[in-house]
């Protein structure tokens, strides 16, 4: 009677110790899932998902607090990649096709040099100093649009980047297979 109970208790204790030890020894810093999600996000830091930046959205997704289709700049591709990573069902919606890339442009005539857009820019793509004209480093601009609303004189605009022959992509074949059986 006692032998099996004793044996099981011993085993349970041994495995408990082992698990407890490995939980301390092999402890993982941070959240690896959040890191993986973060690496799929476009890093515009635009906040359109309702979270203050890409990392907070990634953490919320890792905790399962939000949906995978909240990232507007990422579009359908990001949603599908997230669905794939998290094993969730892709969210079917409209208007999630191609996302037009934008760049911020400062109207040189109107800029008063208040530095507010500069402080808003998450990637330091705006240069300038107090009471001096500001400029956008186009190459670094992610097109998040966070600099538009802080401007007191409304001199920041978001302009779509025109597609040229180098950035052009072949379209998805329009005539899809009629009968797929």
């Amino acid at each position: 009677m006692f032998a099996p109970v004793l044996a099981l208790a011993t085993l349970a204790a041994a495995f408990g110790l082992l698990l407890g030890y490995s939980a301390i020894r092999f402890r993982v810093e941070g959240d690896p899932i959040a890191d993986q999600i973060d690496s799929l996000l476009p890093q515009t830091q635009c906040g359109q998902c309702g979270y203050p930046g890409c990392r907070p959205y990634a953490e919320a997704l890792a905790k399962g607090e939000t949906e995978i289709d909240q990232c507007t700049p990422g579009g359908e591709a990001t949603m599908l990649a997230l669905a794939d990573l998290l094993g969730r069902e892709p969210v079917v919606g409209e208007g999630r096709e191609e996302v037009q890339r934008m760049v911020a442009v400062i109207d040189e005539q109107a800029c008063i040099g208040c530095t507010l857009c500069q402080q808003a820019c998450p990637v330091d793509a705006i240069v300038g100093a107090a009471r001096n004209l500001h400029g956008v480093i186009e190459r670094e601009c992610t097109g998040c649009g966070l600099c538009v609303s802080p401007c007191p004189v409304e001199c920041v605009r978001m302009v779509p980047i025109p597609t040229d022959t180098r950035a052009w992509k072949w379209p998805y074949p329009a005539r899809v297979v009629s009968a797929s059986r």
Partner: protein
Amino acid sequence: MSPVALLNYKSRERQLWRFHGGIHIPDEKALSKERPAAQAPIPRFLVLPLQQHIGAIAKPKVAVGDRVLAGQRIADPVGYVSAAIHASSSGVVVAIEDRPVAHPSGLPAPCIVIETDGEDAAVEQLPPIVDYRHVERALLRERIRECGIVGLGGATFPTSVKVNPGHDQPIETLVINGVECEPYITCDDLLMQTRAVDVIEGVRILHHLLGVRACLIGVEDNKPEALAALRMALADSDMADCTEVVTIPTRYPSGGERQLIRILTGKEVPTDGIPAQIGVVCQNVSTTVAIAEAVLDGKPLISRLVTVTGRAISEPRNLLVRIGTPANELIDFCGGYREAPRKLISGGPMMGVQLASDQVPVTKGVNCLLALTADEAPDPGPPLACIRCGRCAEVCPANLLPQQIYWHARAKDLDKVQDYNLFDCIECGCCAHVCPSHIPLVQYYRFAKTASWARDQEARQAEHARARHAAKQARLERVERERQAKLRQKAEAVRDKPAGAGTAPCTEPKAAIEAAKQRAAAKRAAAGQDAAAPAQAGAVRPEKERLTQD
């Protein structure tokens, strides 16, 4: 010809290999060979796109209003993988702006537009390098670069880069591509017939430049005149002992670089690799002639042979065309359209780019203007479902599984398509040609390729943005820490004041200033390197500090 017979196909004693797949298609080459070649007239406007090559876009070195001469360099290469652009006739630069070009997107691209004066006055040419065997190889490469030579078979890769495989890549075999396997096109055939001596001269230059042992000129057996001309020219030259003109069986796409290397040498170019890795460099015959002209005559690449053909053209023929001539003027020179073409293509019917309009200029890579009638290019109708017949896999010259790639490309699964080596696809169109369901397979592959490139680029940009965002966050935190530290210091100084007896109340202003100076000096010494004194309070401060630190 049966596969067994192909396997044992011999040209003289040379053994030939066979690449997987391939198809036989009507070659339609007689159409443009009926009439002799002609020199196309100088157009009123020459439109020279700044991007006629693979690599960085060239930078214009002329301004609107400048007078330019034929052969004058009007745009410089930017970086190593790039090519110079030369004016192909004399005239005045009237615009540097976006114009429609021969690109599948139909989007305009930056071009230099020259209004010609009809004089065709030439700029003083570069000095000929006749004794090229005794000059530095780098000098020859520089000449090829100066003359703006790119691969004229259609790929337009800068030749100066291709002939510089590096010291760690010994090149044993030079393969000259005179296959011209696409239907309708005959400009290389004509070039080999009429300028065989120049082809051999070019081979001799490349032989020296690359230090190769053997040169193989591959020509399909449907070009007997070209083969005879090349063999005659070779017999008259001193290259006969190391060069061979090899007849290869007609089979599309034997003219693909990897396929031709396989046929002639039996070697396979590795995935993601280049032929130089297996000791082979491949050049098109037209490029070879352009190299000979550049080195021996100092002539830049300003003209090329173009086949204007198709049953929608009244008088199909080959034309010697100045680069930048609008396609519609060439078609008019060939008698215009016999009927409205169903399809207008730049290049061949299999791999060419369909043009939205004929108002585009001929560039370095355009070897053919093809106007097909409705009979020649019938509408295949809507694509049907894939019946998994596997014929695409049978004909794929790159040994891929076109059907699998199709399924995954259709599902936009960009990782899976790369598992099936999508990027080894040469877009030859064999799979789509044999597909009984008329599925536009190549279009799916092109979509998947450009989508993959775009995705990779977006990932790189996102990574870069992440790093910059993290850097900004770190800086803001540091500035905030420093501000807190300074506040604490100040608070401590205020607290210590009543206790310290050293600071007696000053009546004299001078003494007060003195005392303040001493205090400041002491503080600076205490703070060490961290001496950035706060100038103003409020929101502006972090910005100021940031600017001084950045």
